[in-house]
């Protein structure tokens, strides 16, 4: 398809305003845009769509150390479903994803509303809230690993203040370690949600709020009943982006907990990497990658659908 793109259209009349052309290079000019796009389309077809298909094919094989093309049907998916570590990783993603999204939304929207009250030094505060987003998840992981270190971090500090019985050793506790990922990820991304909400708030017409005030509505009520409904698209985009970050989370786990204790904080992304690259289970790793893709599509498709619908309806 990509090869025929430029050729097919040398004679076609281009659509749009530049249709009438009198230069001798008219033919060339007509297919130049397509020629410019062709490499990107080719890259996209090969490296995105081709690779997805390729990974799918690998997931149907018995590949271990090296890719082999000995097909075993959906056997790897069955193995995955029977794999306890995969279930731990999937459950972790549910816990981590839901908490991460909900807490980020709560903190982000609260901070945005508070910042929107004619605050002095708003710019400085905004800068402080948002800077973690510029950091690598590896850096975030390294810093929070240090803060959460029971012997030298927050726990030791609070105990040093005289609260001897204070416990905050989640990072070494298999049942609680997953929540340390939530803390670090919220620290990194909630400022971004604040920025999204603040931009949304600034885009709302003042007269709506004034009208509500004249009706005697209280400020919290105005925000809840008038402002928030206007921000529905912002909430939607934020959920979409955060969920996407959650599914792709890999670096943070590697740097903060290494998936441990044991594999208590494994996520699908780390599961995939471990099996495909270090445990010589390419088939199984591919199957888990395909399920991750399925997860992303399950979020993406309803989003795009509603996006297109709302655009059609004005």
């Amino acid at each position, binding site marked *: 398809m990509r090869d025929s793109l430029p050729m097919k259209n040398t004679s*076609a009349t*281009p*659509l*749009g305003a*530049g249709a009438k052309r*009198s*230069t001798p290079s008219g033919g060339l*000019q007509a297919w*130049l*845009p397509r020629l*410019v796009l062709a*490499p*990107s389309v080719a890259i*996209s*077809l090969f*490296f995105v769509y*081709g*690779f997805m298909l*390729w*990974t799918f094919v*690998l997931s149907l094989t018995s590949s271990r150390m090296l890719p082999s093309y000995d097909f075993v049907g959906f056997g790897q998916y069955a193995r995955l479903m029977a794999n306890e570590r995969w279930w731990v990783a999937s459950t972790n993603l549910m816990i981590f994803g839901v908490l991460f999204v909900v807490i980020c939304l709560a903190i982000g929207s609260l*901070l945005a509303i508070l910042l929107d*009250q*004619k*605050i002095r030094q708003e710019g400085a*505060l905004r800068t402080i809230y*948002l*800077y973690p987003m*510029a*950091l*690598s998840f*590896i850096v975030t992981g*390294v*810093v929070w690993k*240090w*803060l959460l270190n029971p012997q*030298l971090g*927050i726990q030791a*500090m609070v105990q040093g203040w005289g609260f001897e019985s204070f416990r905050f050793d989640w990072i070494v506790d298999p049942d609680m370690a997953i929540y340390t990922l939530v803390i670090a990820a919220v*620290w990194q991304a909630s400022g971004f949600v604040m*920025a*999204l909400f603040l*931009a949304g*708030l*600034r885009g709302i017409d003042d007269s709506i*709020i004034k009208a509500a005030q004249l009706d005697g509505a209280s400020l919290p009520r105005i925000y809840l009943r008038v*402002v928030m409904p206007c921000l529905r698209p912002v909430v939607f985009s934020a959920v*979409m982006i955060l969920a*996407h970050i959650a*599914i792709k989370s890999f*670096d943070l786990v*590697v740097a903060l907990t290494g998936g441990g204790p044991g594999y208590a904080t494994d996520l699908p992304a780390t599961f995939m*990497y471990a099996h*495909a690259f270090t445990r010589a289970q*390419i088939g199984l790793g591919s199957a*888990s*990658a395909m399920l*991750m*893709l399925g997860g992303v599509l399950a979020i*993406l498709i309803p989003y795009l659908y509603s996006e297109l619908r709302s655009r059609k309806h004005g």
Partner: protein
Amino acid sequence: MANVIRRQTPAARLGRGLLYGVLILAALFYILPLVVMLMTSVKPLSEISAGSLLSFPQNPTFAPWTKAWGEACTGMRCDGVGGYFWNSFAIVIPAVLISTTIGALNGYALTKWRFKGSELVFALMLFGCFIPFQVVLLPMAQTLGWLGISSSRAGLILVHVVFGIAFTTLFFRNFYVGIPNELVSAAKLDGAGFFRIFWRILLPVSAPIIVVSVIWQFTQIWNDFLFGVAFSAHNTQPVTVALNNLVNTSTGVREYNVDMAAAMIAALPTLVVYVLAGKYFVRGLTAGSVKG
């Protein structure tokens, strides 16, 4: 939204106080990890084990920084993260320039030279923004091998360009959609060509979106870990991979001050970009969610 009526009753004043209280608490939550990181990186080890997280360094020393830069062990080798820091630059700079250039041309072709199916082409490419990269890792490893550039900087540059153009195309496409078509149409009637129009009409007004695209790509690629760890050898690793190896190298005494200094080194370039061009950084972040 900023026209909230303020009455200076005592209750209102209390409310204002509470408001600032919450905002400052939040600021502390975000800023303290950075402060702790910085303070820990200039404390001698003895002070770390004796003092507490927030205690101010008594005898500040830059030794952890020099050790992190040139001597600390990252896996097998003990030559610090300095070399990897430059590695990251050697990967990031070409990848950012190439992907931004391609994105600009794509965005231009998609908006000012629309053709039948150009929207489909855009949708096709846009999907690349959303895939979890795990789904391309294994085929990519094999393809880089076939191309003879596995574990090389060139390989990493290729990977970052390939998966960056979806974003850069999105940025430029959404920006150019907002540029009026009249000038372009007039230039076309005058017989100006594809590249001439781009060079003379679009490029001069593209400065803001170029900055957004460059900053976005710079932060994304600098902060990348997944591709870096999957497709590099010990001498081509980016700094994020080296930092992770340094922190997880388990020989001898854990030198937390060196860990923090290395983390600061890995974080500095993107922090500097953020401080200098925060406005554009935010615009890049929101570009994906605010539709053009």
